[in-house]
């Protein structure tokens, strides 16, 4: 309904041009603003497993404060979509279902879902590859991890979903695991201490439908020193 032509002035910068420059990454790619152009499902209902979780989350909050459960419920929806369609995202009808369930205006659910980049408001690939590009990871080789994701996953860059629908690549800010940098978060799991080869191996096994155990790729126990503990190795009597 705009009275202005749609073209962008030279001085104006939309989210698209950021992507063109390959900077910015982030949630803009997995977040729809305004009217979604992609296919929104016409219907959403919690399945049996989700319903159990929904009841559990709602019960956590006192009567009249049910709206507090909006974030857990958005996760429930996203997981269920992942189970059912292989793409873990939150369609708009599902947000309406949540709003109705929690007795809150739908726009308040839209606000929460679009604020947090953990919620995908557009369909994504089977596996969500989230590359941490913040300074410690960058210094420890996140560029290699990114390159490996592109090469092995068949991805053009941040925001892209592979043709086979397996992967969506997103750049995220610090995941808080700098001591194990660089990190690749696949859906909810952290894969740590990666380099180009180990990332390729990881993606290849994901392609085969396997889910390697999360954690360090070089065998560290959590964030303990490489090769095992080197202090407090013996207990003196």
């Amino acid at each position: 309904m705009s009275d202005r032509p749609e073209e962008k002035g030279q001085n104006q910068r939309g989210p698209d041009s950021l992507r063109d420059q390959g900077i910015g990454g982030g949630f803009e790619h997995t977040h729809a603003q305004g009217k979604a152009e992609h296919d929104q499902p016409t219907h959403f209902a919690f399945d049996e497993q989700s319903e159990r979780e929904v009841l559990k989350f709602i019960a956590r909050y006192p009567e009249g404060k049910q709206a507090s459960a909006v974030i857990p419920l958005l996760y429930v929806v996203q997981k269920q979509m992942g189970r059912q369609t292989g793409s873990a995202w939150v369609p708009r009808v599902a947000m309406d279902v949540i709003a109705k369930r929690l007795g809150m205006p739908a726009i308040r659910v839209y606000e929460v879902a679009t604020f947090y980049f953990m919620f995908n408001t557009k369909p994504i690939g089977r596996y969500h590859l989230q590359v941490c590009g913040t300074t410690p990871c960058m210094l420890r080789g996140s560029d290699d991890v990114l390159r490996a994701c592109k090469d092995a996953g068949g991805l053009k860059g941040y925001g892209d979903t592979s043709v086979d629908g397996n992967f969506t690549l997103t750049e995220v800010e610090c995941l808080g695991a700098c001591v194990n940098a660089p990190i690749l978060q696949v859906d909810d799991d952290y894969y740590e201490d990666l380099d180009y080869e180990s990332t390729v191996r990881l993606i290849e096994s994901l392609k085969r439908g396997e889910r390697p155990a999360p954690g360090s790729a070089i065998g560290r126990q959590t964030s303990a020193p490489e090769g095992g503990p080197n202090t407090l190795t013996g207990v003196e009597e």
Partner: protein
Amino acid sequence: MAKVTVDGIEVEVPNGASALQACEAAGKEIPRFCYHERLSVAGNCRMCLVEVEKAPKPVASCAYPVMDGMKIFTDTQTVRNARRGVMEFLLINHPLDCPICDQGGECDLQDQAVAYGKSFSRYEEGKRAVKDKYVGPLIKTIMNRCIHCTRCVRFSQEVAGVPEMGATGRGEAMEIGTYVEKALTTELSGNLIDICPVGALTSRPYAFITRPWELSKIESVDVMDALGAPIRVDVRAGEVLRVLPRQNDEVNEEWLADRSRFAIDGLKRRRLDRPWVRRDGKLVAASWAEAFQAVAAGLQGKRIGAIAGDTCDAESLFALKQMLNALGSTSHDARQDGARIDASRPDFYLFNSGIAGIDDADALVIIGSNPRVESPVLNARIRRRWLAGGFRVGMIGPDAELTYAAERLGAGPQDIAAAASFLDGAERPMIILGRGALARQDGAAILKAAWDLAASTNALREDWHGFNLLHHFGGQVGALDVGFVPGEGGHDVEGMLGGGVDALWLFAADDFDVARIPAGTFIVYQGHHGDRAAARADVILPGAAYTEKDGTYANTEGRVQHGRLSTMPPGEAREDWRIIRAASQFLGVTLPFDTLDALRGEMAGNHPALARLNAGPVRGCTDSTGPAGEGALSAEPFAPAVTNYWQVDPISRASAVMAECAATYLAPQPAMAAE
């Protein structure tokens, strides 16, 4: 109370007041964008920064509560620098399109940039681009200009009660909108234009029309609903371009409903701009003299009756009534909707608690009314009272979305008496009876039942009058005040249409079944629009709409206000009282006034209530004897009185803007998925 010193001026403000309010009390102007005194405090624009003694950095005064002994400084170098910084950030993404922006000249950002803006920009990067949103046929959005003050979000959530706007995304990607493209489902959307401090939300019908400094601004009163909101009519070159609300805390606060604001393009369409006389079955253009001669000839020896419309001024109604009485007829009725109103005592037909009285009530029963479409601003006041808590609302009538929780107590008149238990224990119970509920066969009995409910719930006391009739238009109460109801031996609308008269004077009356006028009845139509009744007329006398005459109007609570002439009536049309005065001469019963002042003097002598300007209702009830109200209550449930908010009277029916609204809002809603 807390003692606060603002720039050396000592003021006392209530505990819990904000620093900004203290500054205002001291007469200091604080720039602001997000703060609005009728909305919740957001504190996100940061423009209202002030310095507070011992505070380490400037504080946002709108969200900073005062403390006793606080010292505030509003004009230090730090404050000026801080506000300049905020302004610089706000302007980073604000387009430099003031020359083509409709807000230009009345824009908060523009004004404050003069005070706090730099004359150059240090920002060389590109500006952010945001897609414009569709929020309905009345609001034009240019979202590049939005500064994210969230006033519109808070207004739609808090005042309008339709939480449909929000801020999606975050950081630089944050956008104000509805997320799902849709027209805001509120009758108050025009107020978004007023509260938007920049040009992001502007009026769609008014886009690119004029500049505010080119307008003549005339203070008048709205008649499009019975609230009687004070308005400012903005006029340029004899054309009404815009209607804005004025502020009256006892009536509209500062809001205005959409029909009152946007139906004005109807003032320019389908107008009757010259007299017409029917000759050989066809209406032909005539001069005033010919028209009056035709009226005199047509009324000769006939039993005459008059039906008045809903937006007529009291002066003209008074004059018309005087003329009819002089001609020996007492058949005059202003209740074209057939509402069985008892006009024998004002408190039978007034909103006696007063509009401001809603704030004091603690329980409400609404009977046969949907205040949301009958008076949206009044409904917003009920909602605000409801939000404050300690207020329960019951409703008898068709189910409706009122923007507050209302317990459904029944569907028809027979449930009225039982509502007493709902009001049990309320200190100041309130009953709102819709005028539409009286427009049926058992209307008089319904009026009595509602009055009896008030009496039985102790709502009729010397200090509180809980019986309220909610009218639909700004001229309806004035008509009852001048006694434009059948006198001794006169016929009402029903009687007149049933063959009680041979000649009918229709004064802007279009909202009754015109087809029921018996064949052979001589019709004089005096009005401003070629609407339903004009086509049936034998003589058409072109009159003035409410913006084109000086007139007295009483709102639903009986508050008397003057509307003022803003533009001249089109063509040969004239102010209505002049037409009646001239006609009276041709009919040989010359009315005894030649000027509006003389007419007002005469009217004040007969109806002193109409001379008390802008006085609210008399609080309290001195006589709890109810209306006569003979007849039995039927079992038929109440029907909605207003089904199409946007098109209800000749002006709004002529409006293209209102037609678009009706098409948008009354169209069957598509399923969610199809959007």
